[in-house]
């Protein structure tokens, strides 16, 4: 059941992205920014956490989850460090993902033949 939910919810979020690609002139970067901001707003309103509890990977894996992690990071950091958390929370909350994507991306580039994608 949780697999079905992850498949359908994750699929639907991707379908929304595809609708934006097909019917608007938005670039990939713009669509990703929109999804991240949407996730951040939903996370900030406290709606994304229950969504993750319900949909599992269907809510965690789409890039909207990245946005909600930004909001969560900021909230936690402010609780722990006060106003400094306003600045540190976003990167802290998403540090693992950003660092991993940068590091693996760099390794992939170093090891592949240039020109390949």
């Amino acid at each position, binding site marked *: 059941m949780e*697999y079905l939910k*992850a*498949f359908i*919810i*994750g*699929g639907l*979020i*991707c*379908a*929304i*992205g*595809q*609708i*934006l*690609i*097909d019917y608007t002139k938005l670039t*990939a*970067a*713009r*669509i*990703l*920014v929109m999804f*991240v*901001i949407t996730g*951040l707003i939903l996370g*900030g309103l406290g709606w994304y956490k229950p969504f993750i509890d319900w949909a599992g*990977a*269907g809510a*965690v*894996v789409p*890039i909207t*989850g*990245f946005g909600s992690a*930004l*909001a969560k990071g*900021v*909230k936690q950091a*402010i609780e722990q460090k006060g*106003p400094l*958390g*306003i600045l540190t*929370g*976003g990167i802290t909350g*998403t540090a*693992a*993902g*950003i660092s*991993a*994507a940068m590091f*693996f*991306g*760099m390794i*992939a*580039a*170093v*090891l*592949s033949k*240039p020109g*390949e*994608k």
Partner: protein
Amino acid sequence: MNETAKSYDRMVKKASPGTKSGKTIPSAFCIGGLICLLGQALINIYEHYGAASEQAHIYTLLTLIFISSLLTGFGVYNNIAKYAGAGTLVPITGFANAIAAPAIEFKTEGFIIGIGTKMFAVAGPVIVYGISASILYGIVIYVFGLH
């Protein structure tokens, strides 16, 4: 004038190849859904081996990022992306691909200007506006005492 603009629009619509949304949306749904299904399997595996729910989520995202970078390195991810569209863009694997693909493509321009700079061609705006929005959010919840 308005009327001609409208009829011109109709002509353009007729002449341009029909939107393949009947194909693209289902394939984005299926492939995006499958990536999330894989994510769910990973979450369950990590939780089975004792990771707390939140940790399991992070390990899952890291695993997906690793797989995506690897497949991008082998040139496989972009081949899937041709059919999947948003199905491979919207999941976190798309973010990893957006970093790895230009890094690989622009390796010829060198390690600093090529790999180091170009890897943020797409991911850069996502990080810049994501972090900036999170700071605005932080100011709001701090000022209004909502944290």
